[in-house]
């Protein structure tokens, strides 16, 4: 199973939500990043978002900021991101890149989309690209045949929501709350109503991200969403471990718990 649409057909048939895990490329190192993704997949993560570490991550909280800073200090570049994407796809799960816009523009918009498909990736999540600025990107993704995934927020108005949602393929990324990435003690009540609003307009699957970190939260979100996205909680396992071995075991454990959670 290599594409997002295949994944959501399968999870729907199994009457559950998909578990999507986020990991910044090159964190803690290139090899250990791939090992971490392997542990996530072994624990039951269904699809992977590979973060392109960026110098000015305005949508990220302290956990992802610290991970990106370390990765950049290691010298992670576009080639490394694509290598990790390819390694993930070879594990047999759909993989997408999540990136701030400037690295795409710098790499070349058409070239970036072409490289994604060449490495077996499904698509790209662009959290700071507005649909208004997407003309070139839309064309590039159509040429390469990859999914374009935009983020919608609780503050997105009813008037605007269709404009964004109709541009999405693969899934719609629903930000559960107004804020930056990070773990939270509870899932915002806004998430459920946002998902309902999106589902009223589109048949494209909807995944909820931002602040989901526990089995209970995953189970709660899986009641109404097609996918549950977890990022900071995985990174934290590595940041709080004294060895990579310990970190990998904790990551796999967390994946197992979350994976039980999404099976309602």
């Amino acid at each position, binding site marked *: 199973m290599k594409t997002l649409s295949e994944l959501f057909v399968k999870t729907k048939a199994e009457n559950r939500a998909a578990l999507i895990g986020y990991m910044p490329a090159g964190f803690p190192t290139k090899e250990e990043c791939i090992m971490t993704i392997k542990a996530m997949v072994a624990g039951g993560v269904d699809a992977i978002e590979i973060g392109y570490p960026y*110098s*000015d991550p305005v949508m990220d909280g302290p956990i992802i900021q610290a991970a990106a800073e370390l990765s950049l200090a290691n010298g992670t*570049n576009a080639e490394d991101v694509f290598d990790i994407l390819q390694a993930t796809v070879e594990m047999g799960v759909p993989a997408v890149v999540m990136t701030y816009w400037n690295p795409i*523009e710098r790499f070349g918009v058409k070239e970036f989309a072409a490289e994604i498909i060449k490495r077996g990736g499904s698509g790209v999540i662009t959290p*700071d690209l507005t649909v208004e600025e997407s003309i070139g990107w839309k064309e590039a993704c159509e040429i390469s045949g990859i999914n374009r995934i935009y*983020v919608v*927020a609780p503050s997105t*108005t009813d008037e605007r929501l269709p404009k964004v949602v109709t541009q999405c393929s693969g899934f719609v990324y629903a930000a559960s709350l107004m804020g930056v990435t990070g773990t939270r003690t509870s899932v915002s009540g806004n998430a459920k109503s946002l998902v309902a609003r999106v589902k009223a307009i589109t048949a494209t699957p909807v995944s909820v991200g931002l602040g989901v970190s526990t089995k209970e939260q995953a189970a709660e979100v899986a009641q109404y969403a097609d996918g549950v996205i977890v990022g900071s909680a995985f990174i934290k396992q590595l940041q709080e471990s004294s060895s990579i071995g310990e970190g990998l075991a904790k990551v796999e454990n967390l994946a197992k718990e979350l994976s039980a959670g999404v099976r309602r």
Partner: protein
Amino acid sequence: MIEDFLGHFGPYGGRFVPEALINALDELTAAHESAKNDPVFQSELSELHRTYTGRPSIITEVKRFAEHAGGARIFLKREDLNHTGSHKINNVLGQALLTKRMGKKRIIAETGAGQHGVASATAAALMGLECVVYMGEDDTKRQSLNVARMKLLGAQVVPVTQGSRTLKDAINEAMRDWVTNVETTHYLLGTVAGPHPFPTMVRDFHRVIGVEARAQMLQDIGRLPDAVLACVGGGSNAIGIFHPFIDDKNVRLIGLEAGGSGIASGKHASTISGGTPGVLHGTRTYVLQDENGQTVESHSISAGLDYPGVGPEHAYLHDIGRAEYRSITDAEAMNAFKILCETEGIIPAIETAHALAGAMDIGKELGKDAVLLLNLSGRGDKDVQTAAEYFGIPL
């Protein structure tokens, strides 16, 4: 008007922000548009400028300084005499009034030199708003006097320890706060960068500089200047004085960027002279970046110019050839700083000293008959410590 309704200046500008902010940006655009055409708002703002800011600011001809600039006639637009000591107050009062108009009670701001933070804290005190200022930790050290001023004015100052610990990281942290608290909070951005409508709106609030100066030149000497000069960090004081002259095709518009140790050294903040087009902080413009699209740290002795981006309208004015941008090193700026102090009894901000150094070059190029108008964007009280260290004056 050269920008389109989405805030584009040719290929530059626009909005590259999380979807969560779009609604607030739309609301702000609408508030700005309606205020622009509302005589009540406009008269409230100009009355504040007359009775609080101290507008119109005067023009001073600096004859002794001009001897170091090839003998050209040089006129300073004295934004340093504004309340709080710089041009920043023009934009801040405008946005603070808009904040009230939108029914918000809390403002957040980023600051580099601390001038924008001080101006924001001042407006918040005046209008009864809560104020939080984000400032890179390095900048809190080199501009400690302004940190104290903000605290005296009742603002909370948050030192930012991420990244390069300067202005760009303060903006990142302010954006994170804004995404989280957008319903109650207005982000009072201090320059003509950021997503639409900031570049347009902040420019509109600073146009008063150029509008006044143009009329003052006509009245004082009966002609327009040959060149208008300003330092460029994000570009707000520069666009404020440039904009009313854009249609005066014979008036050269010259922006002076911070050259740090020189563009060739890689340690500079000359975004247009030494950068490439890209996206930073929500807008497409010139950016200091590496081949992977990562922002490169800027370097300047001046905290207020130490920024790896620039307003998108400047990027456009550069590309179409309407404005020119040059780079001034730390050493050149400090030389001009000292000369202005000693020849005219005016201590400029180190930011502004970059424009003064530019005037020394351009005056020599244009010769005795030339008339230069320079935006003296701020006073140097905040820089006394840095300057004393630079010139070896014991404190």
